[in-house]
């Protein structure tokens, strides 16, 4: 297992946002978390990245217990995230945002770094046309591409994507999912949170359904996508 979450509990004050969550992410796979609004998906990802303190449970990444490591140490170890709502730096250009993604890297003057930039520009040609545009002036879809590209610039072992298709037009959603496949094909492990459950489950090696802070179902993505009760609750009936 590249990433393992065991019995994770996180509180906001007295509110239990997630309770006793356990799952693993196998190297080279896509793992998806789905669930209704407020189920605790974002909280789970933020906790894995170290932005929320853990009340109980532990997180093991690449063989190391990272439960209490500060966020920047986790990034250095190869754990990167494209957060919900994108979180681009509005007052920085596209290029500066991508450089921020590589903040922990020491090789920013090498050809390898340039290759990684090119790889991001291949995945998102729109970004290469806009390198000098301020991120704050980009459209929502462009900012989403930037946030994903930025997360890849860290050269992560695993990338956490929180609702990358949020607020995008259907055509762009299909493109984003194709890119997620491509990211995995290039060898990066993906932990995905999605509201577009049908599209997400279809390509997931394993998936977990969250409800009010707990995991209520787990299984290979295709199995869950084919399950009648899952269809009724999360997929609007048709896959």
């Amino acid at each position, binding site marked *: 297992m590249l990433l393992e979450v065991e019995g994770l509990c996180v509180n906001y004050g007295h509110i239990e946002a997630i309770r006793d969550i356990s799952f693993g992410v196998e190297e080279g796979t896509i793992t998806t978390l789905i669930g209704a609004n407020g189920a605790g998906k974002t909280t789970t990802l933020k906790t894995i990245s170290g932005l929320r303190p853990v009340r109980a449970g532990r997180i093991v990444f690449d063989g190391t217990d990272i439960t209490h490591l500060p966020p*920047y140490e986790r990034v250095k170890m190869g754990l990167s*995230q494209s957060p919900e709502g994108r*979180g681009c730096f*509005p*007052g920085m250009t596209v290029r500066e945002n991508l450089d921020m*993604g590589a*903040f922990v890297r020491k090789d920013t003057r090498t050809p390898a770094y340039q290759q990684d930039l090119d790889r991001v520009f291949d995945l998102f040609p729109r970004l290469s046309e806009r390198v000098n545009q301020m991120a704050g002036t980009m459209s929502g879809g462009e900012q989403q591409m930037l946030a994903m590209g930025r997360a890849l610039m*860290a050269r992560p072992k695993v990338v956490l994507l929180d609702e990358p298709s949020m607020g995008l037009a259907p055509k762009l959603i299909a493109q984003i999912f194709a890119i997620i496949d491509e990211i995995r094909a290039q060898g990066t492990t993906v932990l995905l949170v999605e509201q577009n459950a049908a599209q997400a489950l279809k390509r997931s090696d394993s998936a977990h359904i969250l409800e009010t802070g707990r995991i209520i179902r787990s299984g290979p993505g295709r199995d869950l996508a084919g399950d009648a009760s899952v269809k009724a609750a999360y997929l609007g009936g048709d896959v």
Partner: protein
Amino acid sequence: MDLGALFGSFDNFASFTVGGLVFGAIYALIALGYTMVYGVLQLINFAHSEVFMFGTFAVAWIFVLLHGTSDVSWSLGKALPILLVAFVAAMIVSALVALLLERVAYRPLIQKNAPKLIALISAIGASFALSEAMGLRDRFAGWFGLDHKLSNYVSPGAARDVYSNPVSIQPHKLFEIGGYAVSDVDIVIIVAALLMMFALDQFVRRTRFGRGIRAVAQDPESASLMGVNSTRVVQVTFLIGGLMAGAAATLYMMKIGSTRQNAGFILGVKAFTAAVMGGIGNLRGALLGGLLLGIMENWGAAVFGSEWRDVVAFVLLVLILLVRPSGLLGEALGKARA
């Protein structure tokens, strides 16, 4: 309206302008401390005035240490070696006070996610504590048996009184603008302040760590996800504010030559005003606000009488904020959005 008539003569107008620029440069350097901390933490470091005040004492102490306590009047050239040491010492002392503030007055609150209002109260308390600690310096000196050694240059009997630099720096006229004798001291102050600000601006814009500071200012949570150590960024922000305040303190002591335990208050308020005027969170705004404030308050003093100087400064601030609520240049370091 005929400005010349207002100022009595154009000669005075020029002299008030240049004089204002000199003070404006000092305001701007102090304003950087307010603006940087605000940009990163959205918090007004009320105690920054004390960071500056400690710097002014460091300058005087270095002169006592390296020259002694006999009152003399030196040219800038003669004072320069000690002045350079004092410059470094003041930057170190101010930076240490700033780091102490961050550690004691702010970090515990930030870690608990306390409301900004609580941090502001903590800052006001820290400001009084630092100022009174300096007021007690002679008593501290007494504990170490130093009081008689220091008595020569501490005004007799009054611990809290003005503390003068034994070496007063005699300005030397270089050239004249409209009847105002521009001195070497004036030039050094303006050039040094501009150089410091230029260096800082480049640091924040061009370096990797500078980009990290801007990232925390724009979106702290995203910055953490990029691997920025936000505690370190906050520390460095305070450190930079302290270094700039220490530099300002040296320039201030060159010009004024004396300080006191509450010397930071009025300069702090002015510098804060300058920061808000230029757009708090914006480095270039601090420069513009500082220079503008220095000039305008001097003009105001010329037109309405010097007792109105501070009133003019604040009326100006209110007028500018009415027209441009986020200051002249807006919040570039912070929430700049197009």
